[in-house]
């Protein structure tokens, strides 16, 4: 039937379909091009100019934005802070979420396991500022719940967000609380689809639990592990909202105390929107862009060697 229709109007069927197709794709493509690809190209352009958003002229200054940037100690410190944050967040969130997923795996078929899973997942969908507010109070050195618990066990009570050493760990604890649910659910998905026959065969052969985990479960979930690591890396290098809110952004001083939580994204925000140095901020953005790209490529290279794809 269809062939008959095709043969009756072959002349304008294809152009019309092309027209229709592009018409349907147009809204999305327009949004992607105008608000994402154009800025991406634009980013490289602004980085090499002395740029003022309110004046129409911009002067080509070559690499001088980068030269200025590299002489700023704060730039290097923000890079270190970001790497410190990512270096803790990526392994911590990967291992903790895998651990929780293993713990919940058996219970997931019953109602109780599903409830725990939902509770672990809930923080991930909560708005960051709304939940950061209560965490600021939980972290309060004097009246906070956290220090009350630590005090109950006679453990040292750090100053958390008020201390230069503990502000970053406090932010990390919040971020772990907020993000682990997602990774746990991803791991759970992989664990519930493990081939039962392989696990049972190993058990029949008398494999110990640790051996089972190391030699069978770990390789079988490695594609998800890789995915989680990439996701966590990209996510932690771009964390902004929780650092901004927890470290006093609403009061005008995000990234404190004493720049101890000034990560790259906080510094970019402050350079551009508080100190109005757009060229410098975009030079930093370009560095961040390249850093994320480089890390993703490196991880891909590693994954090609160690990830076991079924």
């Amino acid at each position, binding site marked *: *039937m*269809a062939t008959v229709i095709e043969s009756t109007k072959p002349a304008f069927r294809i152009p019309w*379909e*092309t027209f*229709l197709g*592009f018409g349907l*794709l147009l*809204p*999305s*493509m*327009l*949004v*992607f091009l*105008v608000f*994402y*690809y*154009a*800025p*991406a190209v*634009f*980013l490289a352009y*602004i980085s090499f100019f002395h740029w003022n958003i309110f004046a129409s002229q911009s002067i080509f200054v070559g690499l001088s934005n980068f030269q200025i940037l590299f002489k700023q100690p704060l730039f290097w410190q923000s890079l270190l802070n970001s790497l410190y944050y990512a270096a803790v967040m990526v392994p911590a969130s990967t291992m903790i979420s895998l651990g*929780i997923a293993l*713990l919940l795996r058996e*219970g997931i078929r019953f109602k109780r396991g599903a409830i*725990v*899973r*939902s*509770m*672990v*997942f809930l*923080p991930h*969908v909560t*708005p960051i*500022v*709304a*939940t950061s*507010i*209560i965490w600021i*109070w*939980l972290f309060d050195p004097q*009246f906070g*719940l956290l220090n009350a618990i630590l005090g109950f066990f006679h453990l040292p009570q750090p100053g958390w967000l008020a201390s230069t050493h503990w502000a970053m760990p406090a932010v990390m604890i919040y971020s772990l609380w907020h993000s682990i649910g*997602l990774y746990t*659910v991803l791991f759970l*998905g992989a664990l519930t689809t493990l081939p039962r026959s392989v696990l049972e065969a190993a058990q029949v052969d008398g494999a110990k639990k640790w051996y089972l985990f190391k030699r069978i479960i770990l390789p079988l979930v490695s594609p998800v592990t890789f995915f989680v690591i990439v996701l966590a890396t990209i996510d932690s290098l*771009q964390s902004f909202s929780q650092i*901004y809110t927890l470290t006093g952004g*609403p*009061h005008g001083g995000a990234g404190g105390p004493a720049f101890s939580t000034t990560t790259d*994204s906080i510094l*970019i*925000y402050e350079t*551009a*929107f508080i100190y109005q140095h*757009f060229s410098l*901020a*975009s030079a930093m*953005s370009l560095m961040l862009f390249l850093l*994320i790209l480089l890390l993703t490529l490196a991880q891909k290279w590693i994954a090609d060697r160690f990830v076991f794809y079924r």
Partner: protein
Amino acid sequence: MSKYLLTVLRILIAVFFIIPVYWTFVIATGSRGAAYSLPPVFLPAFHFHAMWVVLTQTRWFRYLFNSVLITSITILSVLVSSIAAGYALAEVRVPGKNLIFYLMLGVMMLPGQALLIPQYVVMFHLHLLNSYAGLILPFTASTSGIFLFRQYFMKLPKSYREVSRVENVNTWTYIRRVAVPLAKPAVATVTLLTFISTWNQFQWPLIMTDTTNLDPIELALTHYMQTYQANWRELTSASLLALLPIIIVFLFTQKHIVAAVAGGEQGGKD
């Protein structure tokens, strides 16, 4: 023995993740000064006075209106644009389809933080700063939404399309009456995910507006942080009010949300 230990561990984990939300409720509805009591008060006192203050003596409903407006228009636009593009990728023969496909994938690879500065400049030149349009337009297309609908439309039997072609049903009617009703789970998934991401938006409105008239709730909360400083009951009441819609939606759709976030394609199973 170790079985009980594991159960205790599971309960501890659940408590760790749920306690901040519970604590927001405890502080918000506690009696005056309860936030500052040592040792802490662990039970809520159900005093809703502070919440009443936030609702009646601040511009809460203005912020709520902004959030609802921005979220609902974004959801509708994402649905329309994703259905259209998903249909085009699945059913229509378009030249250069692969290139378009990769362009869409590429959007997901662009690191958002690195793009904010040039995006701000683009918004400035389009005169979209400080406008609802500026808060909505950049989020009216979604790669994951497009791919989800594409997947659903590709699974539809070819005969449906052929029958409707024979019956002279036009494409618009086919999409509206046949394709979309059969992709209802995808509609639900895209709606839920867009709702969560839009309602929770913070950095974009923070940068793109400098008037409080346009602020959605999540951004308005930072103003409450300035005004209420140490009034923890009012402050946590505000954050509880901001949390409430998300928590209610989550309670009713948790299975679907978990599946949707864990992998768009699994969202359609129930």
